[in-house]
């Protein structure tokens, strides 16, 4: 009984040892556990009518050859004016950059790849810059989705994607704060002066005319005499 038990236990231990040595041969996509693509800055503030930009940034990537992302926003609040390529992938050589802007549905599709048989780029940096035009007041999520990173062997790079948000405010008037003003009170002295000048002028004109008339009458009387 004891002998059987010892054999069974030994067999189990050997099995566990063998299993611990086994390594699965499934090919896992490359990528550092910290590789991330995110909206930078994560939170933005903008004013209606004044354009602002956000970056799509990559962090801690290895052998990046090509990338693709979609960015979605509230199309009632924002329009995208333009999307431009960042400097990160250009470090690896010539690139091809493509964008599709859909302001009706509120998303952009952006792609970029290195050209030719060259290695990918390592590190962190800006993939693209998106320039927005805020149309209305409100808050919109900048949803980064369908992100794909490919290495120089055309394998997917595992990564995480982080969204951003933007708050759009109505712009303040230029030059300070709003103070209510009584226009009549403000203009009263000037109205008074204008009235005084007008009356003085009128009185002077009347006086001069009367004086002239009296002089004429006097001269007529003198001539008759």
């Amino acid at each position, binding site marked *: 009984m004891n002998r059987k038990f010892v054999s069974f236990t030994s067999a189990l231990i050997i099995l566990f040892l063998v299993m611990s040595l086994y390594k699965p041969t499934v090919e896992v996509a490359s990528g550092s556990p910290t590789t991330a693509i995110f909206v930078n800055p994560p939170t933005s503030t903008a004013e209606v009518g004044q354009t602002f930009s956000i970056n799509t940034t990559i962090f801690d990537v290895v052998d990046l050859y090509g*990338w693709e992302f979609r960015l979605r926003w509230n199309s009632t609040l924002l329009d995208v004016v333009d999307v431009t390529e960042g400097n990160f992938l250009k470090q690896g050589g010539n690139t091809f950059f*493509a964008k*599709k802007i859909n302001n009706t549905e509120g998303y952009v599709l952006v*792609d970029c*790849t290195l050209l030719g048989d060259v290695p990918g780029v390592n590190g962190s940096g800006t993939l693209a810059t998106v320039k927005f035009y805020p149309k209305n007041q409100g808050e919109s999520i900048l949803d980064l989705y369908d992100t794909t990173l490919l290495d120089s062997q055309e394998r*997917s790079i595992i990564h995480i994607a982080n969204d951003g948000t933007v708050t759009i405010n109505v712009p303040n008037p230029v030059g300070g704060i709003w103070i209510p003003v009584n226009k009549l009170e403000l203009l009263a002295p000037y109205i008074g002066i204008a009235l005084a000048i007008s009356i003085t002028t009128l009185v002077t004109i009347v006086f001069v005319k009367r004086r002239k008339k009296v002089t004429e009458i006097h001269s007529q009387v003198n001539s008759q005499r």
Partner: protein
Amino acid sequence: MKKVSLIGILLMTTILMVPTFAEAATETWVVMHGRITSYGLTPVALGWCGAHAKVGEWARVRAFWVPMIPQQPPEPPFTFSFYAAKLVNASIVELNYGGNDFYVFGLWDVFSVTFDYYGEHNFTITVTPLADDAEGALTVPNLLPGESFTIDITGVELITGEVRFVCLRSIEIPMGDCSGPTPGMADRRVDIHDLVHVAKAYGSTPGLLHFDFSMDFDFDFRVGLSELTTIAANLGREY
């Protein structure tokens, strides 16, 4: 008299009120890729055929084949020769035509092409026409992977091949889908996988590493900006 008039009016109204069902606009798109196996009686070492068609309207068919296995030394100078055929004008593009699942008839150009490589991307290309605007047909009796097809062009030996990939859709099949998560395998969407696959071959020509006729969309024997812009124009599209 009044009754007759009334019945007449009623009949006219009924006839006018019968809804007229317009025939739904249906269109069929076909993509077929195949491997060319023989040229006349000569077995083909390497060959590819691609057809992209809108049934009843137009077709784009291209083929290339190398009768002998190219003896390519590791370093230039070396020579790479092949045959190429291109449908230039399609007059019949049909499914279920004359007992064939897929049939394309039209005018074809056929060339013999030789690339002489000298290294550092220096090469000369010699194109010799074998047929110019010659009548010919792509015939696919069974449009299924593994089945055979032929390209029969006047003045050119019969080209035979085997269907490898078939896609039939009632929506437009965009150009540019040449890769997917598995490199070189189309995944029915145009995305970064296609762009990177073509970008890796950017600047390559037949006989060089990464060149693949399936990604030479304009059939100019070079993977260049035209291929990248074709993909860029269709990015995000699925079929």
